[in-house]
C-alpha cells in the first residue's frame, strides 16, 4: 500500500510468549488505524525462535510482523532491544511508533525516541484522531488526578508508550495470512555493559493477568489481617493486591502493589478493601470491569469509581463475605 500510513506496534518476546498487554495495544492501534486509513504492523525483538510468535499477531489481524532475533536479545535489556527495534523502525518507515508499555517497554520507548530524535509520550491510555485529522493520545498526569491530551506529530514519527489498562477488547479482529519480515538487528558488534546477576522468576499468574484482584489497604488495620485478603482472593480464583501504603509498611510485597508505581490491573472484579483511593492507586485499577469498595468512610474517593460499595468495617465484613463465597463454591 504505497502512500498509506503505518502504525508500528513494538513488542518483545517475553519468556517465549507475547504478554497479554501486547494484544491490548494492538487493539488500540487497530482502532486508530481504522479511523486514519492506516495499516498496523508489529515488531518483535527476542532470541532466535521469536518469529514463531508472529502467528499470534496474524491471529489478531496484523499481517506484517518484523522480527529481529539475536543472542543479545535473550534477556530483557533496554539497550539491545532498542537498537534492534530502531533497525525495524528504519525498515518499516512508520508514521507512528506505539510501544507496549511493559517493564522493558517503559525504558525502551524513551531510549528509542532519543535515538530517533523524535517526540516521546508515555502512559497513553487512549489513541484517537481529532477533528483536524491529527493523532491524539490521552494520558493521565499528576498520578491520574488529571487527564492530558497530546497531539502527536507523524513526521518524524512520534514514539508513544501505551499503557494497557484502557481495556481494549477487540472483537472485530479477523485472522490474516501474514508474513514475517526479518530484521537485521545490527547487534553483532554490540557490547553489553549490563549483566543480570539475579532475577526472581515468579511462577504462576501475574497480577496484571488475574481475572479477580482483591486488594488490601491500611483499613485492614494490622498486617496479620492481610490473610483475609489472600484467602478471599484465592476463593475467587484471583490474586491478592495491595495499596502502596501497606507495601511501604511491609504488610504486603512489591509484587502485590497495584497502582502507578506498582502494577496496572484490569480484572473483571476488583475489590478494594480498606483503601481510600489515592489517585496513584486509582491509576492502577480504575479500568477494572466491576469495582467493589469496602471502606468505613463513605466520602472516600474510591466510591466514586466503584460499582458496589460497603461502608462497614472491613474486618467485620470480610469473614462474612469469605463464608458466603465458600457457600457459593460448595454450591450450598
Amino acid at each position, binding site marked *: 500500500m504505497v502512500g498509506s500510513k503505518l502504525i508500528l506496534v513494538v513488542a518483545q518476546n517475553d519468556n517465549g510468549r507475547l504478554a497479554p498487554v501486547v494484544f491490548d495495544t494492538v487493539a488500540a492501534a487497530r482502532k486508530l488505524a481504522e479511523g486514519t486509513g492506516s495499516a498496523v504492523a508489529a515488531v518483535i525483538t527476542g532470541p532466535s525462535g521469536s518469529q514463531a510468535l508472529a502467528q499470534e499477531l496474524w491471529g489478531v489481524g496484523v499481517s506484517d510482523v518484523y522480527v529481529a532475533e539475536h543472542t543479545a536479545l535473550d534477556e530483557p535489556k533496554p539497550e539491545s532491544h532498542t537498537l534492534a527495534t530502531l533497525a525495524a523502525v528504519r525498515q518499516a518507515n512508520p508514521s507512528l511508533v506505539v510501544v507496549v508499555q511493559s517493564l522493558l517497554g517503559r525504558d525502551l520507548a524513551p531510549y528509542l525516541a532519543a535515538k530517533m530524535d523524535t517526540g516521546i*509520550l508515555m502512559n497513553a491510555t487512549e489513541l484517537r484522531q481529532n477533528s483536524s485529522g491529527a493523532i491524539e493520545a490521552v494520558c493521565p498526569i499528576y498520578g491520574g488526578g488529571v487527564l492530558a491530551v497530546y497531539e502527536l506529530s507523524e513526521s518524524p514519527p512520534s514514539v508513544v508508550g501505551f499503557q494497557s489498562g484502557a481495556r481494549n477488547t477487540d472483537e472485530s479482529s479477523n485472522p490474516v495470512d501474514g508474513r514475517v519480515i526479518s530484521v537485521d538487528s545490527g547487534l553483532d558488534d554490540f557490547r553489553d555493559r*549490563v*549483566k543480570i546477576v539475579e532475577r526472581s522468576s515468579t511462577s504462576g499468574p501475574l*497480577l496484571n493477568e488475574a481475572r479477580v484482584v482483591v486488594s488490601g489497604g491500611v483499613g485492614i488495620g494490622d498486617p496479620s489481617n492481610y490473610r483475609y485478603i489472600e484467602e478471599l482472593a484465592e476463593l475467587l480464583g484471583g490474586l491478592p493486591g495491595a495499596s*502502596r501504603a501497606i507495601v511501604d509498611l511491609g504488610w504486603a510485597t512489591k509484587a502485590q502493589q497495584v497502582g502507578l508505581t506498582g502494577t496496572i490491573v484490569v480484572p473483571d472484579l476488583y475489590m478494594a478493601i480498606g483503601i481510600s483511593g489515592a489517585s496513584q492507586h486509582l491509576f492502577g485499577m*480504575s479500568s477494572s470491569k466491576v469495582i467493589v469498595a469496602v471502606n468505613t468512610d*463513605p466520602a472516600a474517593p474510591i466510591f466514586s469509581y466503584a*460499582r458496589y460499595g460497603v461502608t462497614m468495617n472491613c474486618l467485620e465484613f470480610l469473614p462474612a463475605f469469605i463464608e458466603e463465597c465458600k457457600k*457459593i463454591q460448595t454450591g450450598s
Partner: protein
Amino acid sequence: MLRIVVLAKEVPDSYILDAFAFSGRLQLNPETKTIQTEGIATGMNAYDEQAVEAAMRLRDAGVECTIQVLSVGGIAPARLFQRAFALGADEGYHLVDEGFEGADSLSFAHILASAIGHLGGADLILCGRQGSDYDQGVVGPTVAALLDMPCISIARDVQLTSPEVARVIRVTPQGEEIVEVELPSVVTISNELGPPRYPTAMANFAARRKQPTALTASDIGFDTNRVATSLARVSKSGIAIPQRQGTCEIIEGDNPNEIATKLAQALRSDGVI
C-alpha cells in the same frame, strides 16, 4: 573521585495536590492547559530527593565522590537547591535560559546532557524514576541514550563493587532483580529506596549559605533552536479532570452476613464470580 550527577526537577507538592484532587478542588486553566497552582507549593520531586539520598549512601559506604545536582528552570529553584544542599549535595547547577521555555522531553534531555558535558562528564548519573507531576519517566533513559550510557531503572539500592562497576537492585512487579552495570551509567531511583535522611539543623544552616551556579544555554553549548524546532512534535492540546462513574450502589443490611449475601448475589448476576 567518583563524579555523581543528580538530575532534579521542581514539581508541585504531591501531597497537597493529592489532597486537592481528593476533595475535588483541583482547578484547571484551559488556556495554558495546566493545573492552577495557587496554594500548591513546589519543591524537589520526591523521587529525585531519593536519588540524592542514593548518592549520599554511596558516600557513607566510603565511596569518594562529588555530588552535583542539576535542575532546569522552575518557579522557585532556590528552594529545590537548598533542599539538595541540606541533603548533602556538594554543588548545584541551575540551568536557566529563555531559550529553554517550552522544551519537550527530548530537548530537556539534550539540555541536561549538554550541561553534564560542560561540567566534565559524570561516572554515575542518578535521577528519580519519574516526576511526580507528569509521571513520564523519560529523563533517565533519554539522557542515557544521548550520552551513550546504559540505563538501569527503578532501583532501590545502588552500590559500587569496583570503581568501574555498580551493583543495582531493581524492584520490578515480578520481584527483585540484581544487575551489574559498567560505569558511566544512568540509574533511576524508585521510592523503595526509602525516605531521604532528615537534615540536621547544622546541615540546613549550611545549606542556606550555599548557592547554585546559574548556567545559560550558551554556557553549556546548547543550541536553543533545538527547542524551537521540536515544539510541535508532542504538544498538549487539552486537559481534563477524569470522569468518575458516580453510580456506586451502597449495599445496605442489618448485619455483615446480610450484606455479604447481597453483594455476592450482585456479583454473581454480573457474572464476575
